[in-house]
Each structure stands twice: as structure tokens, then as C-alpha cells.
């Protein structure tokens, strides 16, 4: 450790402004501060500072994603061997390793492409490298179907980082959730790769699927009128779907970590789910013969990306509403819209991504009204007290 510190300290002058390797400044700084919390002390303002920083915050978010990610890897294997009809013969380790080998390249490609772009932009802007992409870089693989070709992952990641984040000014300035923009890009640019019944299961090397195996997600089945999915499997996560979204249990563990550490907004999580339940209930009352509308409202929580979206996507602090009241409205509308699109719109099998991106767009407007409310309330006090 000491040798490393000396190395970084010694090389620092070379990457400072005017140094020969100035173009490596952001890279140097990123690795140095990753390994060592800087020795900078307070020059003005408060003399003491909280130990929390962006690295700590982002690493907690990454930690909260780990259960869903690990389960996602296992599930990739489980679905693969399920398609082969070999769930009984293949062991846990075999399934997990299979998934690991499929998912790891996606994660690596995302990080290399995304972080590469971040480093370049940070250097150009003269900023520190922001930690936000550490989370985005895990979120992107988790919302992709496992069969997505790596080049598509690379292209959508690059699109998202450049056009959703950097052109707006980098971390903290973006309007939409970068991970969802990456997915939306894929969704519109290569629709065949992200919908249908075949993309959710890694079938490489499978000649013929087992009898009766379709590979369709429970949600797709429900949209076709078949609402007979197994709730328990959907809760545990042994269903086809995007890599990280299937296990509601793992997502709840993540939600627990985010809420107990205070990093994720419980207001948004709760209100999103409430909104979804409300819309589900509303659809139940007008369902008639439509069996999808008649799907018991709370079953919606177990299928598709609703839970994942509510816990990990809607809560992105930069693109979400920022005021406490605004968060309730924002989350509730995401829930309502997600189920509305999911059930009523035949073109999109899932509505969570659209709902969150749409509400990302409107979050500043919601906040605007909350802030105006605060201003009016305080003005009223002025008039009473005067």
C-alpha cells in the first residue's frame, strides 16, 4: 500500500497542469482517490466533514444490487438448463457458473465503454471522474436480456453516457436515468433483441428446446391471456426476464439496504408500488372479460420490471423529483403509468421503463409546483405576522 501511495504521489507532478502527462490527470486522480481517501483538509466553512462521500454512497448502491445480480447469474443458468429440460440434473454451481460466464462479459463491456467515455470527458472538462457510472455500469447489464450481443451493449452504453449524461454536463445534470436510456436505445434501435419469447434465455448450444418450453416471460404470457404463472417462482425469481429483474426477493434485500442506510428514497419506492397497486385495482374493477385486466392487482408486483424499477431506477436521485412531496407524486405516477402501459398498450409488453423515463421528464415540473407551494406558504406567513 505504501509503495502504491509513493508511486501516486511521485507521479502526481507529471499529470498536473503543464506536466508532460497532463492528459492522464483525471485517470491518475480517479485511481489515486479510489485507493486513498485524499489528505485534503478543510480550508473554509465547516472544519469537520462527514465521512460519507460519493464513493461510499455509490458503493452502497452497488452493494444493494449484488443480491439481484448474483441471483440473476444463477437464473441465467437455471433458465438455460430449463430450456434443455435438465433442471434436475444440473447442479447449483453449474448453473451459476454458466450464468457468470454469460453475464460477466456484458458487465465488463459496459464498464470499459462507459468508464472510458467518462474518463475522457472528465479530462476535457478538468473535473474529477464521477462515481455515478459505477452504479450505472451494473444497472445496464441488469436490465438487458442475457442474449444481447456485446456490440449492442457497447453501442447503447456509449449512446447513453454521451447523449443522456455528458451533453447535459455530466453526473448530476442529466434529465433521464442513464441506465434506462441505454435500455430504451436498444428497445427502439433493435426491437427484435429486447422483446419476444426467445431473447430471455441463453440458448446457445441448444439444438432443440425441451417439450412445452416456450421461453416467454410470465408477463408476456399474461398479455396473451395466460395468467397462470407461479407466484412463488416469480417472487424467488426463477422466471425468464432481464438479467437482474427477476428475483423480487433479491430486489427487496437491495431495497432494505438502500432504505436502512438512507441512500435510496423510501418515499419513491413506496409511492411507485402504491401507484401500481392503485392502477391494478382500478383495472380490476373495469376488467370485464379481459383476463389481463382482471389479473389480481397485487400480482403485478411479481412480474416484469416493476419492482426493479421502483427500487433501483425510479430512485436515481438526479433524474427523480427532488422535493419530499414531489417524490410521492413522482413515484405514484410512475406506478400508475407503468401498469397502464403494461396492460392497456398492446405495443409495449412492459411499461416500467417508459413510465420512469416519462416521469423523469416531468420531475422538474413536479418540483416546480412543490417549490412554488413552499414560496406561497411562506409568503402567507409573512402577511399574517406583519
Amino acid at each position, binding site marked *: *500500500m505504501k509503495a502504491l*501511495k509513493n508511486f501516486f504521489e511521485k507521479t502526481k507532478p507529471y499529470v498536473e497542469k503543464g506536466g508532460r502527462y497532463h492528459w492522464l490527470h483525471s485517470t491518475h486522480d480517479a485511481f489515486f*482517490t479510489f*485507493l*486513498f*481517501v*485524499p*489528505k*485534503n*483538509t*478543510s480550508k*473554509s*466553512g*465547516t*472544519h*469537520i*466533514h*462527514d*465521512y*460519507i*462521500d*460519493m*464513493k*461510499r*454512497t455509490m*458503493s*452502497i448502491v452497488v452493494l444493494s444490487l449484488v443480491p439481484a445480480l448474483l441471483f440473476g447469474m444463477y437464473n441465467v443458468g437455471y433458465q438455460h438448463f430449463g430450456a434443455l429440460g435438465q433442471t434436475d440434473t444440473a447442479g447449483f454451481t453449474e448453473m451459476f457458473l454458466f450464468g457468470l460466464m454469460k453475464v460477466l462479459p456484458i458487465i465488463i463491456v459496459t464498464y470499459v465503454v462507459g468508464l472510458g467515455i467518462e474518463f475522457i470527458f472528465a479530462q476535457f472538462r478538468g473535473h*474529477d471522474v*464521477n*462515481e*455515478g457510472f459505477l452504479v450505472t455500469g451494473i444497472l445496464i447489464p441488469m436490465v438487458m436480456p442475457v442474449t444481447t450481443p456485446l456490440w449492442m451493449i457497447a453501442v447503447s452504453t456509449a449512446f447513453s453516457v454521451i447523449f443522456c449524461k455528458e451533453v447535459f*454536463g*455530466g*453526473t*448530476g*445534470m442529466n434529465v433521464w436515468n442513464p441506465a434506462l436510456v441505454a435500455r430504451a436505445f436498444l428497445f427502439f434501435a433493435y426491437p427484435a433483441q429486447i422483446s419476444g419469447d426467445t431473447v430471455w434465455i441463453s440458448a446457445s448450444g441448444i439444438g432443440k428446446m425441451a417439450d412445452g418450453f416456450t421461453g416467454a416471460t410470465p408477463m408476456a404470457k399474461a398479455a396473451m391471456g395466460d395468467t397462470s404463472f407461479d407466484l412463488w417462482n416469480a417472487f424467488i425469481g426463477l422466471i425468464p426476464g432481464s438479467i437482474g429483474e427477476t428475483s423480487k426477493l433479491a430486489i427487496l434485500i437491495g431495497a432494505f439496504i438502500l432504505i*436502512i*442506510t*438512507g*441512500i435510496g*428514497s423510501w418515499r419513491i419506492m413506496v409511492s411507485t408500488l402504491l401507484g401500481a397497486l392503485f392502477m391494478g385495482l382500478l383495472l380490476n374493477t373495469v376488467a370485464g372479460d379481459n383476463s389481463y385486466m382482471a389479473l389480481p392487482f397485487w400480482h403485478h408486483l411479481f412480474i416484469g420490471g416493476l419492482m426493479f424499477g421502483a427500487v433501483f431506477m425510479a430512485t436515481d*436521485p*438526479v433524474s*427523480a423529483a*427532488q*422535493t*419530499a412531496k414531489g*417524490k410521492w407524486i413522482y413515484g405514484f405516477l410512475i406506478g400508475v403509468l407503468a401498469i397502464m402501459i403494461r396492460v392497456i398498450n398492446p405495443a409495449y409488453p412492459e411499461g416500467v421503463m417508459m413510465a420512469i423515463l416519462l416521469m423523469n421528464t416531468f420531475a422538474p415540473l413536479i418540483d416546480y409546483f412543490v*417549490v412554488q407551494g*413552499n*414560496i406561497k*406558504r*411562506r*409568503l402567507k*406567513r*409573512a402577511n399574517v*405576522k*406583519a
Partner: protein
Amino acid sequence: MSKHFKFKRGLDIRLKGAAEAVLKDAPVSGTVALKPTDFFGLVPKLSVKADAQVKAGDALFFDKYHPEILFTSPVSGTVKAINRGERRKILEIVIEPNGKNEFRAFPVVDPLTQSREEIIRLLLESGIWPNIIQRPYGILANPSITPKHIFISGFDSAPLAPDYEFIFKNDQAALQTGINALSKLTDGSVYLGISPKQANGIFASLKNVTVNTFEGPHPAGNVGVHIHHVSPLFKGDTIWTVSPQAVVFIGRLFKEGKLNVTKIITLAGSEVKKPQYYKTIVGAELTNLLSNTTKKETHERYISGNVLTGTKIDPDDYLGFFDQMITVIPEGDEYEPLGWALPGKDKFSASKTFLSALFPQKEYVLTANIHGGERAFVLTGQYEQFLPMDLLPVYLLKAVLTNDIDRMEQLGIYEVIEEDLALCEFADTSKIKVQEILREGLNIMMKEVG
């Protein structure tokens, strides 16, 4: 009509090194100095030259734009030096005491029998006036304005702050006289905020004043918080705030007929051998006090004031005009390998992201290290947790950054000064310099609105 206010928002930072209730005379200080830089926005004009002889209460300098506001010598002696900084800015006027305790005499009168003008004249001439602070902006009060109300906070809730019941236990009569004088300066009321713990203390029994209780973590003791809940400030309002110490000075002036600015301060912090109280004087040189009371185990940081709003000083500097405490903490200028990733049993944090969250009673050593790099505003809802006011601090700060005067006004910039948002700066994940930004906003408002 006494009211009780209870807050949940805020934070008590549990620092090691709180002072014991023991009082000692501080080692005799070599020199005494007044620092014009202690007064925000002041442009000083000297009224003495080096080597001049002064008595306690004789003017050393005055406010260029309000020549009636005098700053007077706390002791009798010789003007030893006038220290200047860049562009000949006056930094310190140093007095060498002659030990004779000569003072300029003022009439001993009962303030209740005096007119407002008479009281103001006495306060200005004695040099006690600069203790009176004006809101908005937290600047020297303008004697030609009659404030809506006057606010006094009877307790300090900042980390390691002195216990006012202890340091003023012999000053009850002076407090009362001071409040009587202040009550003549406003057409409204004099408000005194106390904590529930002081219900039977010396502040609760004061007369001629409206006593409200404020319960909750820091910043419950900030006078800005009291104002917000009792009589919020809007455009055109003026409120004056006075510290209990200043009330005592005012009381002594009327009772003793002289400037008597001896005060009791706290020496606290994790690097102090025996944190306790010391009797000293406004502007005292700290060399003797700090020379053998600190541990010297690590690189130390000396702060005149508390860890949130105080000023960094050298150990041979002088006590700040308003400061009631000296805090000594480790500088912490060391690299920490993978610091952000460790469990953090010893890392105090307002967030619950470190293991320390499991030990709600433990006291911690905090250094001056910033613990991370500065980032853009990313997290939301963080600042609000530390401000018991109906304000939206992040929006306010963004209005400052975009130089939007109307917006700053609407979002309540008149209601806050740096100390009110200091906790936000402490807890901020993005390490944004909240107090600096706010002061920039206050400067803009002063210039544009007045």
C-alpha cells in the same frame, strides 16, 4: 406568552472532548487584539496610531460608513502594533496591557429610566455596539434603524459548545440590566430562546423578555431558527440578535459605568488534555493558554469558535471578538487507504452508511479532513434533514449559483446566515461549500437590495 417548539430535524455531532464544569483563570495573556476581520463587511478606519496610550473603552477604530460605530480597547495599555495584510488591509490592532486597569468612565444609570437615544449613544461610545448583529445578512446593526424585534438565544447547541447556565451563573443581574436596556431599543419584543433543560435556570427567570423554549438537536440553539419560528423575516424587515455574552457586557456597562469585557470561554476538543472553562477577555492572545493544554500528539488544528462555523487560527493568534470557545481537533492531513470502503466503526456519519450508526451513544474524534472530493449536487433530501425551517436549502443555493435575486428572495435568503446551514455542509456527500455559497448570495442581496 411563552411557547414551546420541538424539532426533529438537525444533528448533534458527538465529538470527544467536551468541557468539564471547571473554571480556571486563563494564563495571563501577553497582548490583546481586536480584529476588524471578525466583523462581516466592515471597512475599518483607525482612530489611533501605534504607541498611543489607551484606556479600556477608548476607540481604536471605527466603521468607515457609520463613523458613530466605535470599536474600543478591551484593556488599558499601549497600542503595540497595527498588523496589516495584503493591500494594507488592517488585520489586527494589538494592545499591550499596562496592568493599571484604567478605564473610560461612563455614567452608572438604570437603563429603564433612559431614552432610546441615550442608550444607543452609550452603547456606541463604549464600543459594545458591534456586539449587536442585524438580520438579514448577519452584519453590524445600523443604529438608525428600529428593529422589529430583538432575539437572544440562551443556549448554544453547537458541538462541544459551552454551557451558558454555567458560564453566566454569576451574571444574572447583569443579564437583567442588559435586557432592560435592549427592551428600550425595539418597538416590538425582546425574545429569549432557551432549551427545556434550562426551565429552572438563570435565563428562565429573567424579566422584561418573552421566553420561548426550543427542543431538539443542533441547530435548535441558533437564533436564526428561533426567528424563523417566532417572527419570520421578509423583505424590508430588520431584526437584531444579541448573544447572552453581549447582554452581560451591556448590563455591566450600565451597572459598573465602564467597559468590562472579561468573559468565560471553553477550551474543548479531542486534542485538549483537560477540556474545561477559562476566564479571559475579549481579544486575548492565546499563546499561553494553548502552549501546554493540548496533547501535541498529532498535527493539531486550532479553531476560534466551534467546529462548524469557527475560524482557523494559529496557536499564537487572538480570541475572536464573538467567540465563546476554542476547539482543538486533529488536522487529519493524511491519506487513508481505501477509506471509503472500510466498515467504519470509528467514523461518525450523519448517514447510516458506516458501522458507527450502530453505536448511537459513542463519542468520536473528527479531523479536519474533508473525506472525499467535491461533486455536483447529486443526492436529494439530504440538506432538509438538518434545517428545522420551512425552507428548501438546495433550491436556495442553486438560486445563488445562478445569481437569481428574485428567486433567492422568494426562497427565503433573508432568514438564514452561514451558521444555519453549517450542518448541511458538514453532512453533504458532495462536499459542497454551502456556507461560502450562501455568503456569496447574501453579498449579492446586500449589494442589490440593501
